[in-house]
């Protein structure tokens, strides 16, 4: 939504009433979420089974006998017709039972929930970094618009945007792991450290317990993977926000604020930023799901013990129930992020907030 469209928006929402708008958005979104998740479930389930190749044979080491295969098939219910298998799986999932991992013999749900915090912490740290980096770039670019500094920021943004997180990860490894080794290039925490944690949210819990030594170690591990994930998103935030800031800076209320004696920085921060941030927000939501998707390869690259790293192991080991569980969880996170962004948009926009 462009700021200029404000008046029109204004009229429409005054007529409909805000509560209704939010409620209706929520319901539509919930419905499409359910459809999407069902679609994901169907696709992931059948893709790994329908394509040529016996899934049971894939699970066993080479040289397994026909008997082994038959026994294993029965154990995992894979001897039943596909549709029946699907029914059993879906029924299980709806009751919170995602099946048992073939490689570790542990419930998929436990495995996945054990790794989820690591990935969430990494994603959120990356998001925070992206917002700080991109936001700063946008603000500086707006403050010095038309000048050489804006040009430099544009070039940096273009570079950051052109190269994906995977390559930034490798570049960072070379820079801060080898050339100037200040950060750890693999793992989530130094293995020899005693961890007093009761949850898997290490970063968060180390702060709560005031164990800043552990916290520093964890940050030193997370810094590079998080930065690699953050760079492309930071560039997108930088570009979009600068664009809409510059548009906002020409609006009447900003001009009026200038006559009141405020400096440029204050005008940008207090008058323009909030209104300019709204259109950026929705796009950042979509981009954040890309960032989360990127954790898969970035966790691998930095041997970070999160969901994505486990997913690749699961694929390599042909652990079908685990793959299904992880993909479904990712899909759930993606749709949840989009939903949260929509709600956030409604909350932050005063035109929607008040009837």
């Amino acid at each position: 939504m462009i700021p200029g469209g404000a008046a029109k928006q204004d009229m429409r929402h005054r007529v409909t009433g805000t509560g209704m708008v939010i409620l209706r958005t929520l319901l539509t979104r919930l419905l499409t979420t359910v459809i999407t998740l069902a679609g994901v479930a169907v696709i992931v389930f059948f893709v790994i089974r329908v394509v040529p190749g016996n899934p049971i044979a894939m699970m066993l080491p080479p040289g397994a006998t026909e008997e082994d295969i038959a026994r294993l098939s029965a154990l995992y219910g894979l001897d039943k017709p596909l549709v029946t298998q699907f029914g059993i799986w879906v029924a299980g999932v709806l009751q919170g039972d995602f099946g048992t991992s073939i490689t570790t013999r542990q419930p998929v749900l436990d495995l996945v929930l054990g790794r989820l915090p690591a990935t969430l912490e990494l994603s959120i740290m990356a998001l925070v970094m992206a917002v700080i980096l991109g936001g700063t770039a946008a603000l500086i670019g707006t403050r010095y618009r038309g000048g050489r500094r804006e040009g430099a920021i544009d070039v940096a943004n273009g570079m950051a945007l052109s190269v994906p997180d995977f390559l930034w990860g490798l570049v960072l490894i070379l820079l801060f792991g080898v050339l100037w080794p200040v950060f750890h290039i693999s793992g989530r925490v130094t293995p020899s450290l005693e961890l007093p944690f009761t949850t898997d949210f290490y970063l968060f819990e180390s702060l709560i317990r005031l164990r800043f030594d552990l916290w520093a170690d964890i940050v030193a591990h997370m810094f590079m993977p998080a930065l690699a994930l953050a760079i492309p998103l930071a560039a997108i935030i930088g570009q979009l926000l600068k664009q809409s800031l510059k548009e906002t800076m020409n609006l009447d209320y900003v001009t009026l604020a200038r006559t009141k004696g405020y400096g440029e920085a204050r005008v940008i921060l207090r008058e323009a930023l909030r209104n300019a941030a709204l259109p950026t927000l929705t796009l950042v939501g979509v981009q954040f799901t890309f960032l989360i998707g990127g954790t898969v390869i970035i966790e691998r690259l930095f041997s970070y013990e999160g969901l994505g790293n486990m997913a690749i192991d699961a694929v390599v080991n042909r652990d079908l129930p685990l793959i299904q569980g992880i993909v479904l969880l990712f899909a759930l996170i993606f749709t949840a992020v989009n939903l949260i962004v929509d709600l956030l948009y409604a909350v932050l926009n005063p035109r929607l907030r008040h009837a």
Partner: protein
Amino acid sequence: MDGRSLIRRRAGLRLWLSAGWLMLLGIAALLAPWIAPKDPLAQDLFLGRLPPFWMAGAEPGYWLGTDSLGRDVLSRILHGARVALLVALVAGTITCLIGATLGLLAGFLRGWVDMVISRLIDIWMAFPPVLFSILLIAVLGPGLTSIIIAIVVIDWTRFARVVRAEAMAQGAMDYVASARVAGRGRIGTMVREILPNVLPTVVVLLTLEMGIAVIVEAILSFVNLSISTDDPTWGGMIAEGRTSIHQAWWVLVFPLITLFLTVLSFSQLGEGLKDRFDPVLR
């Protein structure tokens, strides 16, 4: 000089640099069997981890050094370019054809066709793409064909999303209505009136997609799911370099630089073309 021509000049430079690098790479890939100084597969454990030519201990002929198995890094990069560019061209083109067709159909025909395709796109967007591609390779088995299929299956939505939106915008314009009034059929209108107008966008997306294909191939060979491990691929070399980074940085650095420049070039070429096509800047 005003700002606009400055932008155009910078965009022009960017366009030519990118195109130049890609041309160079293309020629190197074509001629790799003849210009590569060594056999990319030849192992020689006595020549393992040789440094590049300017460092002490380098062997003549091994310009960029060797990896832990004594294979020549430069030769492997040149041969790796064949894989990378082949995947870029084939996967990019097929993805483009399928995605753009679906997007065009959805955006122009609307109705239930649009419903089905849009819902499919939504579902696709809920998959983490890297995980999805790894999954597909696991199912299809390693190999070039699998990589290409995986890229097509995952990335058609990029084209479909954008082309659908463009086709919708174009379809609402007067010239389309007048073509219909003049008696042209729906499919005819789509091909003759809409398609030429969305073509610039498609070309830009295709260029960007080729860069993405190169990256996906590199990622898959990094995870060791690409073509067989002996064959030279940039991703495979990077994976090897990552493990021996403290002993032999050159095994990682040279393929990384090549990959970096290639991905950057495809992307900058795409952006440059976008500016060229953009009527506001033209």
